[in-house]
């Protein structure tokens, strides 16, 4: 039984009051409060679908990786039939950790404490000394397996939830699925995780990272300004970055469930190596030839076309979704990456921001390529992603030095009464012939998508048990 806490904090403050629908303010207290954190673990991380990895990480029967659903560790394993299971990594006997490694291959997981053994599907095999029935006579063997989460695969990505009766992953993705399909389901082979994820701890509340993942495009101009100063993004110079505002105009999309993506006109990238005039002469197909979406090569275009509707394809040619997030804690980064040879390549990464108490978050960073990419391209895409994202990435090292300050600020007696503001709204506006659904915001990237994230957060945190 999940412990249910009422959404009223012990000083009498209803959680609902911490997100002001009138003024679009969010109380900083949410970034530091321990009670709020405990509720989040129950109402969000035990209820929604969570990204745990990609099935290419566990290609063979018996393969497993150990991952996290909130603060609960789980085994993600593949059984003999090829099914993927997600199992609480807690021995039903006395609560010991069952899988001690982060990854491996085993047809039997034997707990090192007293030797209870489990199959890759979590079912209980038995305790040592069968004749003594050391699992007792109160519970049947069927009741003594590892606790199973509900699992769904999507584009090879492994999602799981403890919410057995809740919405399906499709329902959870809602209107954003159309857009995510364009990223995750575009070739015959599908995506491939190029290796295990980078992992590191940031001393910040997970929501400092997560609210940004909800398509905060605006921070790029200032926080990631150094990359524009070096000319890595657009032709702006140090002086006219704000005037040029590269990559600020585009189409942001989101939906009720808080997911979002930024469809950024490929112009931003094109103009690094051709003039606007030249560009205008190109048909969508020609554009794809000259600048395929991040992670795709000219050779893979036929595949791409097979997997996408003409509308989707046009979107990919003109303004492919490049960054965004999935509620609650996933960042999507499928970006054009400038190469040192002057060409453009791609960097595909997904992050999860795994809560580690109110003041810490574990940054988990998977790097992808299409399975059908050449080894050279995969190698290139790993390098691209590592240089820009994650541990040492020149983009994201700025982000991870920022969030801890927000978290710290939220701890003061005065600080926790301050608010984060989401008052710059663009408003829904669909471009003509826009192929997808959801909430669509055409124009300068503003606070809409992030506000939607908080609205869904509020919905879950105040839902009736």
């Amino acid at each position, binding site marked *: 039984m999940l412990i249910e806490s009422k959404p009223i904090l012990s000083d009498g403050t209803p959680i609902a009051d911490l997100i002001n629908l009138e003024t679009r303010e969010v109380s900083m207290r949410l970034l530091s409060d321990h009670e709020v954190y405990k509720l989040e673990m129950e109402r969000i991380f035990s209820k929604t679908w969570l990204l745990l990895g990609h099935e290419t990480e566990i290609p063979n029967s018996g393969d497993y990786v150990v991952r996290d659903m909130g603060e609960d560790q789980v085994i993600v394993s593949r059984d003999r039939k090829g099914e993927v299971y997600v199992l609480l990594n807690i021995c039903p006997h006395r609560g010991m950790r069952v899988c001690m490694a982060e990854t491996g*291959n085993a047809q039997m997981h034997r707990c090192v404490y007293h030797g209870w053994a489990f199959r890759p599907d979590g079912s209980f095999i038995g305790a040592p000394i069968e004749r003594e029935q050391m699992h007792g006579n109160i519970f049947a063997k069927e009741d003594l397996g590892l606790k199973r989460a509900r699992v769904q695969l999507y584009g090879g990505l492994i999602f799981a939830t403890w919410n057995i009766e809740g919405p399906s992953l499709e329902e959870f993705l809602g209107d954003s699925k159309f857009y995510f399909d364009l990223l995750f389901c575009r070739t015959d082979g599908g995506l491939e995780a190029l*290796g295990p994820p980078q992992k590191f701890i940031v001393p910040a509340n997970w929501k400092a990272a997560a609210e940004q993942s909800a398509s905060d495009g605006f921070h790029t101009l200032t926080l990631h300004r150094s990359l524009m100063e070096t000319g890595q993004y657009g032709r702006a110079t140090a002086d006219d970055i704000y005037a040029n505002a590269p990559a600020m105009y585009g189409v942001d999309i989101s939906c009720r469930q808080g997911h979002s993506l930024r469809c950024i006109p490929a112009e931003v990238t094109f103009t690094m190596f051709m003039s606007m005039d030249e560009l205008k002469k190109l048909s969508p197909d020609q554009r794809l030839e000259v600048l395929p979406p991040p992670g795709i090569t000219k050779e893979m275009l036929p595949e791409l076309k097979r997997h996408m509707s003409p509308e989707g394809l046009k979107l990919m040619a003109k303004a492919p979704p490049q960054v965004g997030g999935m509620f609650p804690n996933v960042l999507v980064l499928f970006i054009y990456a400038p190469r040192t040879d002057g060409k453009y390549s791609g960097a595909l990464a997904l992050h999860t921001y795994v809560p580690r108490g109110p003041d810490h978050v574990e940054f988990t960073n998977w790097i992808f390529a299409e399975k059908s990419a050449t080894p050279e391209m995969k190698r290139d895409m790993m*390098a691209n992603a590592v240089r820009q994202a994650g541990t*040492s990435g020149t983009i994201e*090292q700025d982000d991870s030095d920022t969030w801890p300050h927000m978290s710290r600020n939220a701890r003061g007696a005065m600080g926790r009464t301050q608010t984060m503001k989401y008052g710059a709204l663009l408003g829904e506006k669909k471009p003509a012939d826009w192929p997808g659904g959801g909430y669509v915001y055409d124009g300068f990237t503003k606070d809409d998508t992030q506000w939607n994230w908080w609205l869904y957060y509020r919905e879950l945190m105040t839902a009736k048990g």
Partner: protein
Amino acid sequence: MTTATASLGMERSPPVDQTAGKRIPTGSALYNEVLEFFYDEAALLDQQRFDAWAALLAEDLSYTAPLRITRQGPDRLNTVVRTTLHYDDDYSSMMGRLQRLATKSAWAEDPPSRTRRFITNLRLWEGAKPQEWEAETYLFLSRSRYEQSQLQILSCARRDLLRRSGSGFKLVRREIILDQSVLGMANLAVFL
């Protein structure tokens, strides 16, 4: 090792002494020169003198930091993952990093960390080519940012290839073997 994990690129880093050439004796003239190189290099990085540091890098530089991963059983020592990396740089990308650090808005290190790179346990071997040497050093990094009263720390081994260059050396290859599966720092915006 199962096929699965092999294909995922987890391996035991072969000890340098089993792959490198002849050992250069500890305390020999060459050893001392190399030791001085590493001390000077550490000082340049700790003083944020990046231009001078850049001059120590060979143009065919490879600068990488594999992941480390926790394994159990027969594979338990195959903990070095070279498929995903924490650093994956060549000379050109490294110059890009330094160029960024020279801007007015490389916030991750502005304000700069106050760092200290303790270099110990240098072991030295001849490299595969003349005038090249394989060096292993242990690095303990202490890093302080803002008003943090607890030092951020990190330990690793570095497996370097050095090449003679004039009266000094150039760093041709550095592989950083970190000791953690989950790093305890918010980023690796500092060089190791």
